[in-house]
């Protein structure tokens, strides 16, 4: 790690690393205003992670909101032309209710979106970039992958309420409750059994894909998942890849491939994304889309070696000393680390070594 990177906080290092990565793949930076018309969020409320939105009335009387989300704004401003694929990344502050603190927080989020006439190559590229993003920001990471088509195939024809209740159980890996919910809504025993088995399927693609085929057959969704994971394994991401059907979407905006990333030492997911053609349709777009967001605030929770000292060297000087000689001496010491100049030892400051500058000479105290 360069000396430059050492001075950056983990979130800042991540922004720096990810920006470079996305630009390597030709994604263009997307900059937007902090505000958006509130109406956009009302129409797509279920897409938002949290309900709370900070609103205010603009000078023209329009109800505005501080952005709780970036994706909706990007879709709203995207081009909707046949054959066009737009690739953008962003680095923005969003304002929403923190699930941990239960109050509004400014959250730094980075991510990318690939939208328009997307195909399997686009989906692969975005999942690959999600895996690579995790690799660049966390020493040990896991990317959970699922295909919503597998569960959708089993839940076809069910009302949104029932589907929501079942998806909640799947999301919690809660096989016992799933059985009770299915029984309450009169779902066939064989479907219930398959859903319960899906909940407990977890692991590397080589282990899960054969079990999945035995469970639901060679469906299109399974074939997509197999092709995608095989390409990712060939690309060198096999060690971090897991198939996990608890990555679900209760809001029904996502379809196809969905994924979630975890970093060791962080108790919650640090990345989430997937294909969201349904949201595109709802917003009047003909094309599809796939993207993800990295929750940079959560990366700050990765365990770090605590700094032993506030400063490496404390250099004491007397008022009126020769400034040129003093700063030359400090620069000399700076080769060994950080140097703080003080006239007296500050209370509560911790330091590795302390020197005094007297008559042009530096002597240890």
């Amino acid at each position, binding site marked *: 790690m360069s000396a430059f990177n050492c001075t950056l906080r983990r979130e800042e290092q991540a922004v720096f690393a990810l920006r470079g990565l996305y630009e390597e793949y030709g994604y263009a930076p997307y900059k937007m205003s902090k505000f958006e018309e509130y109406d956009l969020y009302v129409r797509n409320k279920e897409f938002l992670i949290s309900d709370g939105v900070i609103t205010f009335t603009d000078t023209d009387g329009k109800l505005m909101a501080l952005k709780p989300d970036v994706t909706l704004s990007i879709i709203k401003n995207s081009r909707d032309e046949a054959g066009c694929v737009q690739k953008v990344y962003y680095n923005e502050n969003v304002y929403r209710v923190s699930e*941990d603190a239960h109050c509004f927080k400014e959250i730094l989020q980075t991510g990318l979106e690939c939208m328009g006439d997307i195909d399997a190559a686009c989906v692969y590229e975005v999942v690959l970039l999600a895996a690579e993003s995790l690799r660049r920001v966390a020493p040990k990471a896991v990317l959970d992958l699922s295909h919503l088509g597998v569960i959708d195939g089993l839940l076809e024809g069910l009302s949104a309420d029932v589907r929501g209740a079942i998806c909640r159980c799947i999301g*919690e890996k*809660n096989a016992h409750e799933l059985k009770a919910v299915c029984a309450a809504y009169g779902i066939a025993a064989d479907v219930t059994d398959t859903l319960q088995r899906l909940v407990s399927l977890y*692991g590397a693609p080589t282990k899960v894909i054969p079990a999945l085929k035995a469970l639901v057959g060679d469906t299109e969704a399974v074939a997509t998942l197999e092709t995608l994971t095989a390409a990712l394994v060939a690309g060198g991401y096999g060690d971090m890849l*897991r198939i996990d059907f608890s990555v679900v979407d209760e809001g029904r905006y996502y379809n196809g491939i969905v994924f979630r990333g975890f970093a060791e030492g*962080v108790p*919650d997911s640090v990345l989430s994304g997937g294909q969201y053609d349904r949201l595109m349709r709802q917003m009047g777009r003909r094309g599809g889309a796939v993207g993800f967001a990295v929750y940079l605030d959560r990366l700050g929770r990765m365990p770090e070696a605590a700094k032993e000292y506030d400063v490496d060297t404390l250099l004491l000087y007397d008022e009126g000393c020769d400034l040129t000689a003093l700063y030359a001496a400090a620069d000399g010491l700076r080769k060994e680390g950080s140097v703080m100049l003080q006239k007296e030892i500050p209370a509560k400051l911790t330091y590795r070594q302390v020197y005094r500058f007297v008559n042009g000479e530096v002597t240890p105290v």
Partner: protein
Amino acid sequence: MKEMLNIALPKGRLGEKVYAMFKAAGFPCPSIEEQNRKLIFENEEVGVRYFWVKPSDVAIYVERGAADVGVAGKDILLEYRPRVYELLDLDVGKCRMAVAAPKGFRDDPTRTLRVATKFSRIARDHYAGQGRDIDIIHLNGSIEIAPILGLSDVIVDIVETGTTLKENDLEVIETIVPISARLIANTSSFKFKNEAIEKLLTQMEG
């Protein structure tokens, strides 16, 4: 050094019962069985660390990753909805979440129902499902006396044997949901300590 699986146990009788289940599943920790006031116990050989916490705090320890797995009542999971995996119904600590009222209570659906409870979210969700207008009175204990003193019309609380209700001239008028202890896991720990958690789960299911 062997990677440790951190397990949050609820203090009290239920905790002792579930520790016996963990021990039988191949995760013993002899030091926890000694009578003392310590709260954290380790068995490095097996790779397990247990700690006693307040039952209502288990879900917080697990959600925040201080514990990899833990045992929490379904009442706590329904009330606080922590982002955790609910892996197993342990079938112990069984009771029910119920609505209770003074004996002979006649509900007037034209009036707002005053509900005293420690479980505001469960009560709110239950009555929202019925389209009933309610006034939640959040209390932290001695819920049973609220209707007696006229503070509320009914209470929503955990009922185990019903003795406390009976002694206070109350009776269950509706069961909301059955409750039991659940094995929960942190979503991230489930990925990084998967082998140990799956082993524990398989043993406990068996």
